[in-house]
């Protein structure tokens, strides 16, 4: 019933196009752009149905980088395709999306009571009605999700995994913006979608003094622009020593940065005042202090240089900050520095697992925290030799601190699921509601998106998951993901997942004969294409998409020669 005719025709139901070819997989979700009339943006440039898939593939190659996939002689074609696509895309952005009604499911809205059987109505990318008696508009697509669970899209509150490199080498880099480093082709994004994460706070990692600007993205889109939900979100600050620094250096560097900011502002003010006098052809008539005072009023937002612009925003409370504190001792420093420099009220503490010992300080500060991906803190008593294990979220839950959980990509299979992290909390005595909030509404609030994301409420952005069961049950799968009201993922069409689960042979059935031949050829030549084709190590849903496993197969990928052959009509 959720047919192609209703939803975007043969092109827009993007999840139908999963394949083992990485470029295609990466591309497809990104092509999902909300359109008013459910017309696929690429249909207008699709010359032939059989050739379409290859066109798509080439587009991906172009988008991800010609040095990897592209072939010079195809550049012209690609450029044309990209251009067309891009134009369509930009015209589509902002257009009202379709209406969807998810009916018959158990709704866990996180905020508000559970509804045993109800309907969620999505209109134009927003949730417009939730309840048992919802009138479904005549033009809405009705999706029967009875027996399933409707749950808000989960939010990864702190992740550098969409970046190619997590940290800049320089210690103080407030001028950086993750916008420039987000790689839409990262496998992590695909995994995030598959795991039900609909919003990712992309932020530089912890190895810094002052990192850069972060942004919140959803895991689909061709470019960072398309992916972006909100930006800039926060400035990353680390109180814990950057690699090679000790604590004193780290704190001194932070202090120095803000002192230097004051000096800079004074100097700028003085210059501005002098400039203003020069314009008026007047001579300085006041002392430097007065000049600075008067100059401050003359500074325009455009006057700040790159190094200081964001710091000014930060210290004036125009921007929030994510402050990393690995150990308990760092929390006090973080609080002090934030208070001294005026950004405390919009700060979020990102804690290492050992920081649970500072729960008192955190509680007193009243600020929310993002907890370490490793939920258990192990420690050996140096006197008795006894090993103790502390379940960190329980400590914060007991203290009543608002916290958000991170997935643990470095752990084995389960812990990379945010909902599994939450279920561990329940196992260790945290209340179910708190656990659910910690992966949905809490991170949304920390990102100042509490009014848009994180729950199923009327008026919120329709980032909604359809789960096969309770979110805290490990046997639950993400069946469908809706982002901005558009279905971005469907498990039935997740070919790679099916391969791993043995439901489908590794070869993808192709419609076009040419394409089919090419596919099989690839499979038969493992020596050449093994890695690129292999879903095992590098293409799995469990893949953490770390740099190595992500990059290596790409180098081995055969490039666009054969693929390009299919593009030609």
């Amino acid at each position, binding site marked *: 019933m959720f047919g192609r005719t209703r939803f975007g025709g043969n092109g827009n139901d993007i999840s139908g196009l999963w394949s083992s070819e990485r470029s295609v997989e990466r591309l497809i979700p990104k092509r999902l752009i909300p359109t008013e009339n459910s017309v696929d943006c690429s249909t207008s440039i699709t010359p032939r149905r059989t050739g379409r898939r290859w066109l798509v593939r080439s587009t991906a190659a172009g988008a991800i980088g010609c040095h990897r996939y592209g072939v010079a002689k195809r550049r012209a074609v690609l450029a044309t395709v990209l251009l067309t696509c891009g134009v369509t895309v930009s015209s589509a952005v902002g257009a009202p999306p379709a209406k969807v009604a998810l009916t018959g499911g158990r709704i866990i809205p996180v905020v508000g009571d559970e509804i045993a059987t109800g309907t969620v109505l999505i209109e134009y990318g927003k949730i417009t009605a939730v309840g048992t008696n919802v009138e479904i508009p005549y033009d809405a697509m009705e999706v029967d999700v009875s027996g399933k669970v409707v749950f808000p899209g989960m939010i990864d509150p702190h992740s550098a995994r969409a970046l190619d490199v997590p940290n800049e080498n320089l210690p103080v880099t407030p001028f950086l913006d993750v916008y420039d480093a987000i790689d839409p082709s990262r496998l992590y994004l695909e995994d995030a979608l598959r795991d039900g994460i609909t919003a990712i706070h992309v932020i530089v990692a912890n190895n810094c003094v002052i990192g850069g600007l972060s942004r919140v993205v959803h895991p689909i889109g061709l470019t960072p622009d398309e992916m972006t939900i909100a930006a800039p979100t926060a400035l990353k600050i680390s109180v814990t020593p950057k690699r090679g620094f000790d604590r004193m250096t780290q704190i001194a560097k932070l202090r120095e940065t803000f002192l230097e900011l004051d000096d800079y502002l004074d100097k700028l003010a003085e210059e501005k005042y002098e400039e203003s006098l020069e314009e008026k052809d007047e001579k300085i008539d006041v002392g430097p202090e007065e000049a600075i005072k008067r100059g401050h009023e003359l500074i325009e937002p455009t006057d700040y240089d790159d190094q200081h612009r964001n710091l000014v925003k930060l210290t004036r409370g125009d921007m929030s900050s994510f402050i990393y504190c690995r150990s308990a001792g760092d929390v006090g420093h973080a609080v002090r520095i934030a208070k001294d420099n005026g950004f405390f009220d919009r700060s979020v503490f990102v804690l290492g697992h050992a920081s649970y010992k500072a729960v008192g300080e955190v509680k007193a500060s009243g600020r929310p925290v993002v907890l370490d991906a490793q939920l258990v803190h192990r420690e050996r008593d*140096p*006197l*008795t*030799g006894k090993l103790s294990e502390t379940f960190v979220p329980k400590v914060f839950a007991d203290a009543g601190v608002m916290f958000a959980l991170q997935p643990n990509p470095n752990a084995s299979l389960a812990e990379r699921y945010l909902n599994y992290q939450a279920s561990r909390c329940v196992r260790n005595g945290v209340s179910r509601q708190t656990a659910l909030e910690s992966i949905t509404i809490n991170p949304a609030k920390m990102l100042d998106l509490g009014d848009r994301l994180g729950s199923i409420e009327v008026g919120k952005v329709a980032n909604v998951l359809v789960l096969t069961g309770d979110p805290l049950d490990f046997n639950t799968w993400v069946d469908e993901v809706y982002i901005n009201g558009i279905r971005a993922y469907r498990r039935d069409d997740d070919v790679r997942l099916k391969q791993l689960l043995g439901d489908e042979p590794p070869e993808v059935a192709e419609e076009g004969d040419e394409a089919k031949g090419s596919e099989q050829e690839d499979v038969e030549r493992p020596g050449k294409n093994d890695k690129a084709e292999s879903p095992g190590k590098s293409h799995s849903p469990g893949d953490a998409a770390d740099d190595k496993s992500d990059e290596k197969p790409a180098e081995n990928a055969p490039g666009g020669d054969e693929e390009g052959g299919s593009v030609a009509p």
Partner: protein
Amino acid sequence: MMRGHIEKLKRPKIETSTYRNDCAYGLRLFDFSIFRRLVVVALLIGVGIGEVAAADTTVLVADRYVAPDGTIKSDILIVVANGRISRIVPEEPEGVDAKPGVVDHYPGAVVCPGLIDVRSAVGAYGSNQEEAFAIDPGASAIELVDRNHPVFRAAAVAGITSVLLMPGDGNLISGAAAVVKTVVVDGKGARRDSRTSSSRTSRSRSSGRRGVPGVVRDDGPLVFSLGQSPLRFDRAPTSRGGAVAMLRESLRKAKDGVGHQRLVDFVGGRLDGLVVCDEAMDVDAAVNLFGGMNLSLTLVFTGAASDVSAGLSDVFRATATGPYDYTMSPNALSHAAALAKSGNLVALVARAPGGAPDGLRVTAALAARYGLDASLARSAMTFSAARAVGVADRIGSIEQGKDADFVIFSDDPLRLDARVLAVYVDGVRVYSRELEETP
């Protein structure tokens, strides 16, 4: 009562006094200053006064002494002749018939047998680690001894008169250890002669080169090592499993009489052994390995952990633990107490002079503080240690016939404020605090 007798013996105004043999009791007005100068000179040239004194008999008198069981008892008079304890008079001094050549009186002091460190790396020539073969029973630590090494003197001043010198623990079987004294008292004839012609009869274990001064024992015990230390990258064994398999194989062969004579002797019970373990699991392995073959030996376990104690006494005739210091965890520090509680003979290890000179006493004091009986702690530095390395018939206690190695402490040696007043080796005072501090 004894006090009165001693009053007769000593010079009225000089508490620590020394007599020449030919000074009759009556000639107390002998000018001692000359002799004292002589002593100082002798000490300064580092030879010890044995040569100068060359005396036949010394009498040592103290208010308290450490008995073989480790308890402190009061009033003792020790007659030393030819470097050995010829007589002990704990109660009635009236029976003293020997004419003492030297009478040393230490009022208020405690006479303790010379301390023994059963795992030491004192004074070796270069590396003590032969690395070519993991099974190397032929090596002898005695070949390593560098008598001119200054650390011997440092150990002696701290009260350690004998040490067990071990070949390094980097082999499964590192060879024979040796027990040597930290000061060589070379009597230039008299003492050596007396030693060789001594009436000592039962010398079953300490069968070293009896004639060589400063050597208590040079033929063992045979040193085994388990754990990480014998593992090397490029020679067998590289793993604990391989180590145990190799050891088991060579012990099995030795039982059939194949292999180095020392190993055959060890398996046959004619030579004692000592195994060094650094981790608890290695102790388990040693118990399985040696216990399974009904072999008994001494365990030196440096990875102190108080839960490794039960059942060890079935396999190990003694267990040495240490060194301890104040930064260690209570769990580690209570290991000696746990060992003693489960019936082990406990010795202590300082690895002198690796740490502070008083490392052995610090170790003992901490062991006592964390539950080891005080008398056992004293014994662990002396008699138990001597028993652990098979030299209890010669050193380690104040008993008739044993070597006259003493340390005179100003107080109980477990008290860290107790100072070493004097050290005697083979009856000769090789260190005197009073003399050294007022040169």
